[in-house]
């Protein structure tokens, strides 16, 4: 896993500070070529890993990378799934069972069972989960995906419900089928690590907000730093700048000093911000790649 990962929120109109800014970004990145221009800047600056949602637009980027193997020889995707809006919309359109049916292959046993209204056993839930994961991964066929994440809305919904067996299903399926590192994004890192351990998953890769002001760090800053210091988690920090509330140099210096920190993920749209973050990380974390 690289020390610095490039995120994708800025490309899809997600900005935690301002809707106006989010809209301006959505306009700017309407064309996939505008996204590619920024990814090229990051890639040429030595940032090889792109952490991205399994959004339709990402499929277009995956295709460009696939079509240009020489240009993007070291380009790696870190997919984050599921793209929750797709499922939320399907639930609105088709109802809960209808939505699950909608994503099952035609003629499959599960689709038939769901149509018949049969009760679902635990193993059926496993089967459905695996089919959904495989569907999300299709867009990355033939590309490097060394780490694969479960999105935070999904991770945290399951965590809260106590449906932690599903986290284990995801974990095992990613290991077995994709020969990749399973990972989780969460807004509740200490609680998640405990729950994963209870499922027999030790030293997981977990991406969560980690910033000096404790913004969106549920359980409190101290619980996070304690968990990191305990060596029970391989932590990836997101929202390091707390949406711009902390000056870059101060933010990176603080976070890079935390024990247990493996990587930082950041989003930026300008060359200046990309190079600035790269240089700060290289300076404080001793380069961009782990030895």
């Amino acid at each position: 896993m690289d020390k610095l990962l490039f995120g994708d929120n800025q490309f899809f109109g997600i900005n935690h500070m301002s809707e106006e800014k989010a809209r301006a970004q959505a306009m700017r990145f309407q064309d996939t070529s505008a996204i590619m221009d920024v990814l090229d800047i990051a890639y040429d600056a030595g940032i090889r890993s792109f952490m991205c949602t399994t959004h339709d637009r990402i499929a277009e980027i995956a295709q460009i990378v696939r079509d240009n193997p020489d240009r993007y020889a070291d380009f790696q995707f870190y997919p984050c799934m599921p793209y929750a809006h797709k499922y939320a919309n399907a639930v609105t359109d088709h109802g809960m069972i209808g939505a699950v049916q909608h994503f099952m292959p035609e003629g499959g046993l599960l689709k038939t069972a769901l149509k018949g209204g049969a009760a679902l056993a635990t193993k059926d839930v496993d089967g459905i989960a695996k089919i959904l994961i495989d569907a999300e991964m299709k867009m990355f066929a033939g590309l490097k995906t060394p780490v694969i994440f479960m999105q935070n809305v999904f991770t945290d919904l399951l965590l809260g419900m106590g449906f932690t067996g599903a986290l284990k299903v995801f974990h095992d399926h990613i290991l077995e089928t994709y020969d990749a590192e399973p990972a989780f994004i969460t807004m509740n890192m200490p609680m998640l690590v405990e729950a994963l351990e209870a499922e027999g998953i030790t030293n997981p890769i977990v991406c969560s907000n980690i910033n000096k002001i404790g913004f969106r760090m549920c359980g409190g800053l101290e619980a996070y730093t304690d968990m990191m210091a305990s060596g029970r988690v391989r932590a990836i920090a997101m929202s390091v700048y707390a949406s711009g509330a902390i000056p870059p140099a101060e933010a990176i210096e603080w976070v890079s000093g935390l024990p247990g920190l493996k990587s930082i993920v950041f989003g930026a749209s300008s060359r200046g911000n990309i190079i600035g973050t790269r240089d700060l990380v290289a300076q404080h974390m001793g380069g961009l790649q782990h030895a």
Partner: protein
Amino acid sequence: MSKPVRIAVVGLGKMGLSHFSLVHAHPDTETLACDASGFMVDVLSKNTPATFHKDYDRMLAEEALDAVVIATPSRAHAPMVRAALEKGIHVFCEKPFCLDWQDAVALADLAEQKGLINQVGYHYRHVGAFQEMKRIIDSGALGRITHVMAEAYGPVVLRPKRQSWRTTKSEGGGCLYDYAAHPLNLLNWFFGVPAQVTGSVLTSIFSEGTDDEVMSTLRFENGPTAQLSVNWSDESHRKMSTKISMIGTNGRIFADRQECQLYLRAPSEALPQYSKGWNVKYTTELTQESWFYLRGEEYSNQIDDFISAVRDAKTRATENDFRSAAATDQSIAMILENSDTGIPVGEAPRVSPVATPQKRSWFGRAGA
């Protein structure tokens, strides 16, 4: 530690699942759930540690509950809430509260009479930026507020689609009940129930059975006129976006989920941390951190408020009691009546003129 709050989440649809997750993650609860559909109960009872029921009345009869969270389709709220209150159970209910606002008032009376915690899920009152807006309005720093825009947009119904309760007006579906209720509830929080409602137009764009768009003019006692502008068939918004802006004699304010912007013509003693001109506060400084985050601190914090009130045997929830939700139900009823008849509902509010200190002209004296 006191004994856990035994709490059942009723209705496991979109909101219900989210509430179930938050309630179950809470350190002070023992969680149960109830849903009439076998599917959710099947899956969850096999995979989570909670206790599940398929029949609400049976659950109330068999289980010793402290509290319920009602997240069923809106039409079912009133009878379910009443059944719980009559058994002495504290109630959190999703919005909109009751389709008939008289039911809402009766349930508020009943809950208060029994001394039970009662709360409705208008989560925007738990958003830091709107809390700041409320604080600024109440401080009087804006002077007399005259002009208000209350808006909500989002991509719910983008084409003709399958009927569900959310798209059936008699079930409490539609843009007015589902979307417009939120900015309307914020207006009620700031200014109370409108004195008069005029110019209400509910339009169907894609839905067969209900409205997709709401326009209405709300006039409040002593000044503000609010234009309500809501549309849930707007694909340009990634998800629901609610925003309120207003102009007063001493400035302008804007708030949405992310930020609160204030323009002051003159500094106000009531708000020493704000200066003349533009002031902006962002969600990072306005947000109250929660114990567990699923989809926004506001969802977590409203559930935590409810659970804490029950656990600590408080007399009422911090915000969003039934009485306040009844005001929103009543406002919705005024908009519906006005849209049906075209006749203004309520009386035009009294508006006192802006005081002009010191210099009093002949005309001013004559008018005073």
